[in-house]
């Protein structure tokens, strides 16, 4: 069942492309698939994980490499999978209207389903290397989706930036995974937690740093946060899905997953507190200065991701519960607000908050969804966001490290995020109807049902928290490693935390009234973005300087560079690494007639090089070939000799057929150039001689020869070992070879037929 959950979106991806191309108006029904998967995940969570603990399945993949598609579903993984599938279903539903009639809708759907499968793979993989593969796949599909409008240079740039950053993080993940697998002796995450005390292991620090690099780039933590606002170049449903609800949370998820394995040390907790806290404040602060609604939401997403990292850094049971609740709440209100902004953009053609207002008359249902989502984000009681914030404050308040400071920055950041929530969810709908809103209508049904149901879920969870207590407890157990019953309630008396919630609301109200002044505090330039592009530009300048010198458009120049480089490297290897070869028993003494043959070969080769007519050169080449064939006869290779004789004959035939058309070989290059070429060729030839002497006399018995000699008559049922190798042991190579030959023949045929046609036409 787990394999089906992860792999079926991959199967659906091409189907989606087909449906999108064939029946574009029916695309919304594709949403039923992730919806069904959500039901499946929910079913597994309730009936199996809640009762009997985590479930595991394994599919063999590349077992010799330690790669199995091993899926492991505990509460954390399934809650994450639920978010991926539920929001995925809503996003497909929404996108069917948002991009209705777009010619590239099939491409979007394919990438979207691929992403969904990859993301489910990240959530459910138990094998660290499989996790890495899915992780990179999310980055790759994200690249495709950010760059969806590939005619737009800014979109391409943003896609590239996100890809480079998260790709680098992915490599860090691979390195960290390799270290962990070596340190623990297992590739399975679920077993690593039981591997004992890793904190004193010599690779611990490196592993933690590498996993941090992966998680921080993916989850847009300072100083890597700048790619996320850039990623807003993606179509809005994609932003809602990847860059708010799911993919950016993969980093947080990875940290949560690794907590039982790597967590608990000062290095772990302090880094997460500092990075998470900084990201939260920076994101919230930048959010209130933006006027593009999507960028406002992007920066609040950065802030929320920082808050989640912070909670994982606190690491207590309370903080784990808080992180899960905060994550669910954020997915519901932020996904909803993104879809609302998309609807506004769709109807008015702008996302600039200063040009929007009064839309509630024109788009009442969208306005309702926006209001519910914003209320949750601000943290009004009776909304699920309130629980997230309360638990967050409480986790900070009870933290073992710097509780006062944590609570302070949390309140400040939450207040700023509240302002951003009002900016995005209330600002465009209240006040006087602006000019751009004149011609607006209510968005198509598929575009308000999505946000409304997401925001509505936030209200339902708040009013009846009992229905999600169980999943939250199971998910928190995935972080802390021990299950505890969870009872989140709306009212738990007059506590200091309640006071801070009230203070936050007051601050939101106060700051929102000053929002214009906040916007003017916007910094003049954005630093990180420049730091990212600076080195890349420098790299481009280096290649601009180097390339013209290397690529002069002359094929002889390339050949010369290749020859000199290869010869130089070979010579260096022979001089430095070679040493004198250890001769084996004794060299084979030459015989007189062999010396004659060899002399003939060498003279013919020199004649070919000096030939001034094509016919002479061909005959000389043929002589060389026959001479080599004779050498093969003498040294126990009759198969080679026969093949060489026939091939040489046919080569001469083909040369003669073609060379009717070529003229003489008089010199084209100057004497000086010829001299230079002769010297280069001569020196490299001498290096080759040394190489042959070295490898041909080194005392290394070939074990392969003995194996084939042994196996040819027994396993291969043949006595001609060479032939048995060709048609049995290495038949795959031979298969490839005859395919290449066939392609060459077809190429010759086609080239000549085209030529004949051209001549007929002219």
């Amino acid at each position: 069942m787990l394999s089906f959950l992860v792999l079926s979106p991959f199967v659906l991806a091409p189907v989606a492309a087909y449906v999108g191309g064939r029946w574009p108006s029916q695309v919304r029904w594709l949403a039923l698939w992730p919806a069904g998967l959500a039901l499946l995940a929910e079913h597994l969570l309730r009936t199996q994980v809640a009762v009997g603990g985590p479930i595991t399945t394994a599919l063999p993949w590349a077992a010799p490499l330690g790669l199995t598609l091993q899926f492991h579903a505990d509460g954390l993984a399934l809650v994450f999978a639920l978010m991926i599938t539920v929001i995925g279903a809503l996003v497909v539903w929404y996108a069917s209207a948002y991009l209705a009639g777009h010619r590239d809708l099939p491409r979007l759907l394919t990438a979207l389903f691929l992403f969904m499968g990859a993301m489910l793979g990240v959530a459910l993989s138990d094998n660290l290397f499989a996790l890495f593969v899915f992780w990179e796949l999310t980055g790759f599909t994200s690249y495709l989706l950010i760059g969806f409008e590939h005619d737009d240079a800014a979109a391409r740039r943003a896609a590239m930036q996100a890809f480079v950053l998260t790709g680098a993080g992915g490599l860090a993940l691979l390195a960290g995974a390799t270290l962990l697998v070596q340190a623990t002796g297992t590739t399975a995450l679920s077993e690593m937690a039981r591997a004992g005390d890793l904190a004193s292991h010599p690779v611990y620090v490196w592993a933690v740093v590498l996993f941090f690099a992966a998680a921080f780039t993916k989850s847009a933590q300072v100083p890597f946060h700048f790619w996320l606002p850039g990623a807003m170049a993606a179509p809005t449903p994609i932003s809602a899905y990847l860059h708010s609800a799911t993919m950016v949370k993969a980093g947080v998820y990875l940290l949560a997953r690794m907590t039982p394995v790597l967590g608990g040390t000062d290095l772990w907790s302090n880094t997460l507190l500092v990075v998470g806290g900084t990201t939260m404040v920076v994101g919230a602060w930048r959010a209130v200065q933006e006027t593009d609604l999507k960028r406002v939401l992007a920066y609040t997403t950065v802030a929320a991701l920082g808050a989640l990292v912070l909670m994982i850094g606190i690491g207590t049971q309370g903080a784990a519960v808080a992180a899960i609740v905060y994550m669910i709440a954020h997915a519901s209100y932020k996904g909803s607000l993104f879809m609302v902004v998309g609807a506004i953009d769709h109807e008015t053609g702008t996302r600039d908050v200063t040009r929007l207002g009064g839309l509630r008359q024109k788009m009442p249902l969208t306005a309702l969804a926006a209001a519910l989502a914003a209320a949750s984000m601000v943290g009004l009681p009776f909304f699920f966001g309130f629980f997230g914030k309360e638990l967050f404050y409480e986790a900070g308040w009870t933290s073992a490290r710097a509780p006062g400071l944590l609570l302070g920055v949390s309140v400040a950041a939450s207040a700023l995020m509240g302002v951003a929530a009002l900016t995005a969810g209330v600002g465009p709908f209240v006040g006087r109807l602006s000019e751009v809103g004149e011609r607006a209508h209510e968005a198509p049904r598929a575009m308000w049902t999505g946000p409304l149901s997401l925001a509505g879920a936030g209200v339902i969870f708040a009013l009846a928290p009992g229905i999600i207590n169980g999943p939250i407890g199971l998910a928190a157990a995935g972080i802390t490693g021990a299950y505890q019953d969870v009872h989140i309630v709306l009212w738990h008396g007059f506590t200091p935390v309640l006071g801070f919630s009230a203070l936050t609301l007051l601050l939101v109200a106060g700051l929102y009234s000053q929002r214009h002044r906040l916007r003017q505090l916007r910094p003049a330039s954005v630093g990180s973005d420049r730091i990212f592009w600076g080195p890349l530009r420098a790299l481009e300048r280096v290649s601009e300087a180097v390339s013209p010198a290397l690529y002069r458009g002359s094929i002889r120049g390339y050949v010369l560079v290749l020859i000199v480089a290869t010869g130089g490297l070979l010579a260096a290897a022979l001089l430095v690494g070679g040493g004198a070869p250890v001769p084996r028993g004794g060299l084979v003494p030459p015989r007189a007639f062999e010396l004659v043959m060899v002399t003939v070969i060498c003279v013919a080769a020199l004649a070919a090089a000096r030939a001034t007519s094509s016919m002479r050169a061909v005959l000389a080449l043929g002589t060389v070939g026959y001479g080599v064939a004779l050498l093969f006869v003498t040294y126990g290779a009759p198969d080679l000799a026969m093949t060489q004789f026939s091939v040489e004959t046919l080569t001469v035939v083909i040369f003669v057929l073609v060379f009717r058309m070529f003229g003489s070989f008089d010199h084209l290059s100057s004497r000086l150039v010829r001299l230079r070429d002769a010297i280069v060729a001569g020196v490299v030839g001498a290096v080759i001689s040394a190489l042959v002497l070295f490898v041909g006399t080194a005392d290394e018995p070939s074990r392969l020869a003995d194996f084939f000699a042994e196996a040819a008559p027994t396993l291969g049922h043949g006595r001609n070992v060479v032939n048995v190798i060709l048609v049995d042991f290495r038949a795959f190579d031979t298969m490839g070879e005859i395919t290449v030959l066939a392609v060459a023949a077809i190429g010759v045929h086609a080239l000549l037929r085209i030529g004949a046609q051209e001549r007929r036409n002219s």
Partner: protein
Amino acid sequence: MEVVFAITSGVLYATGLYLMLRRRLAQIIIGIGLLSNGTNLLIFAAGGLTRSNPPVVSEATGQLQVPYADPVPQALILTAIVIGFGVIAFSLVLAHRVHQSLGTDDVDDIGTEARR
């Protein structure tokens, strides 16, 4: 004899490379031909030379007669010979077509001719 093989291989490489640095397509192709032969000799010598029995198992004893030539480089070279034929035939025809279409077989002129 190893020394002799080494020298021969070196001469084939040197002449082949020299021809590959020429401007005529036909000469370049002949150079490739010489280079293939030199490489085959290189691989052959790398397996060790024995002037004796081919790697064919005797019907009577069911064993290879010691000393026998190494069958592995032989299999590699056999493949290389046939592929080399394909490469040379294809490049010859390609050169021939270039000559027909552009009226030149000088690689330094092909770029300018093709752009016209």
